[in-house]
């Protein structure tokens, strides 16, 4: 990429000149990526993939991993495959589908691998933007759940917990929350934050107690004037800084690691059942570096990859041959309530709209 710079600038200049002539043709030729789902690619062994992947030399990874985790994951991958450069683009879950679909409709196939929250990845699959692919070492999802047919691969699951600042609670005279219901108490009015785009949380609530109850819980939370903070990590930092006192949509893995760093400023509560969401990883259709994409995906779901995920990010793996953080994940104590791994676009839109309206983010 480095060597291209002068040509890029030259490209700008010629581009501007040529573009003028085409001004009238604005927006008429969006390429159509949709249509029939492409045929599944047969998984290859690592030995078969490695040479072509190294020849491609790089892989573009669109991910919702937290920024500071991304570079550590890349380092872990590069320990084993030093010849493949990983170009990571960190996006929030809701940016992910828009970004890739916009690119593809513009005829731009840039992303190789996507890992992100399952509702959004489902959106991408439903829109025909992904390449069916199943990594060889993949373990099936629990509870009989599956991704849409032909698609497999899960990087981690996230649990949604309530995180709070004990000092702030004391200062404000607030009771320690134990359940999401507790935050609907008028005492909590305006004292907690929530992510109005956390469809995976809503989805898991629905799985746990049904649509209507889940929606009325959200409405009750919304009526209590929560601060709207889209980033879960930001929400945690704010709680640690003492304001607001709690967040309803903290991720368990991050709460636990932040608590280790700053034990006096952060506590979190796992509810049972515990809202849990999948985070699939998939290869993108027409990926410019297909072999590298597959190799990267294979590594990510494999035992070493999964252990790297746990070690660098504190995320939770569903594999049985790895060691998860016991304060985050212990299915025998906190029974997981999985959100749907396969959600239709109509359903997603419905959930997203309902959630926004319930929380007053509209």
């Amino acid at each position, binding site marked *: 990429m480095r060597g291209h710079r002068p040509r890029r600038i030259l490209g*700008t200049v010629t581009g501007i*000149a040529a573009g003028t002539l085409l001004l009238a043709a604005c927006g008429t030729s969006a390429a159509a990526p949709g249509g029939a789902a492409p045929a599944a690619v047969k998984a290859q062994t690592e030995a078969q993939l490695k040479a072509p992947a190294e020849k491609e030399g790089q892989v573009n990874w669109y991910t919702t991993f937290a920024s500071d985790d991304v570079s550590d994951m890349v380092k872990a991958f590069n320990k084993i495959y030093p010849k493949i450069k990983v170009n990571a683009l960190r996006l929030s879950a809701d940016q992910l589908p828009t970004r890739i*679909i916009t690119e593809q409709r*513009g005829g*731009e196939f840039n992303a190789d691998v996507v890992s992100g929250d399952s509702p959004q990845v489902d959106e991408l699959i439903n829109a025909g933007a992904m390449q069916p692919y199943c990594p060889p070492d993949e373990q099936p999802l629990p509870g009989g759940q599956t991704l849409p047919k032909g698609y497999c691969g899960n990087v981690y699951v996230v649990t949604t917990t309530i995180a709070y600042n004990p000092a702030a609670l004391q200062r404000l005279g607030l009771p320690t929350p134990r359940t999401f219901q507790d935050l609907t108490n008028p005492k909590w009015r305006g004292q907690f934050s929530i992510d109005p785009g956390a469809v995976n949380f809503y989805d898991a609530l629905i799985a746990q107690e049904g649509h209507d109850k889940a929606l009325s819980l959200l409405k009750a939370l919304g009526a209590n004037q929560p601060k709207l903070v889209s980033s879960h990590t930001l929400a945690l930092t704010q709680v640690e800084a003492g304001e607001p006192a709690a967040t309803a949509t903290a991720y368990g893995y991050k709460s636990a690691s932040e608590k280790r760093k700053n034990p006096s400023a952060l506590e979190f509560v796992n509810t049972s059942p515990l809202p849990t969401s999948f985070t699939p990883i998939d290869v993108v259709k027409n990926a410019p570096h297909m072999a590298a994409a597959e190799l990267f995906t294979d590594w990510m779901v494999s035992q070493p990859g999964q252990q790297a995920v746990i070690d660098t990010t504190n995320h939770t793996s569903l594999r049985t041959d790895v060691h998860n953080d016991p304060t985050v994940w212990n299915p025998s104590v906190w029974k997981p309530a999985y959100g749907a791994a396969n959600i239709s676009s109509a359903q997603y839109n419905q959930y997203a709209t309902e959630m926004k309206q319930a929380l007053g*983010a509209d």
Partner: protein
Amino acid sequence: MATLTETPPIHEPAVPHRRRFLEPRYLILFGAAVVVAYLALVPVGTMIYASLRSTFLGLGPATWTFGNYVRTFTASGFGALVANSFGYAAATALVSVVLGFGLAWLVTRTNTPAKGFARIAALVPLIIPGILNTVAWALLFSPQTGPLNQVLRAAHLPIFDIYSLRGMIFVQSTHVTPIAYLMGVAAFTSMDSSLEEAALSSGARPVRVFRSITLRLVRPAILSAALLMFIQTISTFEVPQLLGVPNHTFVFVSRMYDALQSFPADYGTVAVIGVFVLVIAAVGLIVSQRITKRSPTQTVTGKGFRPKVTDLGRWRWPAFAVFVVFFLVTVVLPLAMLLWSSLLPTYRPPSFAALRTLSLRNYLTLFDTPSLLDSLRNSAITALSAGLIVTVLTAVVAYLTIKTRIRGRWLLDGLATVPIAVPSIVMGVGVLYWYLAAPLPFHLYGTLAILIVAFVTIGLPYGMRYLGPGISQINDELEEAASASGAGWTQTFRRIYVPLLMPSLLAAFLYTTIVAFREISAAIFLYSQNTEVMAVKVYDLWSNGDYSTVAALGVVMVLLLTIVVGVVRLVTRRFSLESS
């Protein structure tokens, strides 16, 4: 009567001077005009197009429709959205212009001591990017834990909630007041104080003179400053996004961002709001230009009058206090907050207990993080290239519109001003869609070039603001003398215009580079893997709650920009000394 010959028959310019268009002068001028027109029209055109299509970048067949307008304007909450946006922008414009012009008057026309505070504070928007300013104030005035609110609480005063419309107005005002101040200084120094003296000697009391002479004369400047503040406020992203959205206060920009993040993205709404803002801004610009043109002050500008200094007497000290407060609020507090946060391992409000945990570790982390260094490099490349391109383009365009009588030059002037009326967020989206959707033979998506294109477009009006006055100050005869000495146009431009314009060129370069460096609203749609720029990185880190790294990065950014500003000022001073 005494005509010596018959008047020859009048006919239109006899001959098309065909060779004329092959001269380098016309080729260069024409080329620059085409580039500027293209840059300015692309985002606007794409936006208008998208607003009139039933679907955009969609799979289904699209038809022409006004449906988007009907749907957006009749949506519930649109009235509140308009009210919020206008209230926010108008109040910010009012506050910043009153403060800015007030301070400017104190600096230029009174004997208040320690005016240096105001001069330094005026550099703030150049060195503290809006997003860092917003972040710093969000921490300072955090309702419960913000140190300033704790002070208020200790004093048994009501706290100030930064996450509110008032908070947005406050933070945006701290950011734009210094710009209004600079415009005020320009207006007051170019005003001949003999006009005021004439009123005084006509028997008017000083207050009356101020009201009916001074204020009247700077009124066009006030109006155009207010309009500029209004437009800037209504189209910038960081304050409404960081301070408004958490408390459910939406304005145009945050609503557009929201509509773009939802899936499928609601292009229609975005485009309609974009067109709406554009129309408002364009009407405002036209009105303000009318007013400025009609204003009599235009005839008294340009000369170095010695402004009359009013003796404030005992009021000097309150005025001095105003400067100190202005300096504290715009410079010291936000910078101190950034510095404090940058030294903490995890963010805590200032306290003695936290003092023990201070360390420089975050700075070490910065230099240890390749993606940060990449973003720094990307910012340097894009900002410097954009600054350079804008400076060259606007120099040629300003020459074209001021020094030639080529037909349609007013249109070109207008086009170069258009981007100021386009919210940067729309600019980003417009540029993105165009380069994705238009059948172009080249490929800019995911490159730094697409960022440069956006930054150049955004920078055009700023470049014009420096080079327009710069070029009109150069007497036509200086160019004609060169021409009559046998110098061709390119030689004249290089040997006469460039050296004489050097201070304006440097100022334009500096300002547009910094605008590009801190620009985020457009960049956030255009970056990709490997092309992330620093402002986006700051937003990203903030969104991830990584206050400490944001702060450390912010401090580094501020240092870098301070150095750039300092160097360019030194160079400019040298040049203006030489040519004075």
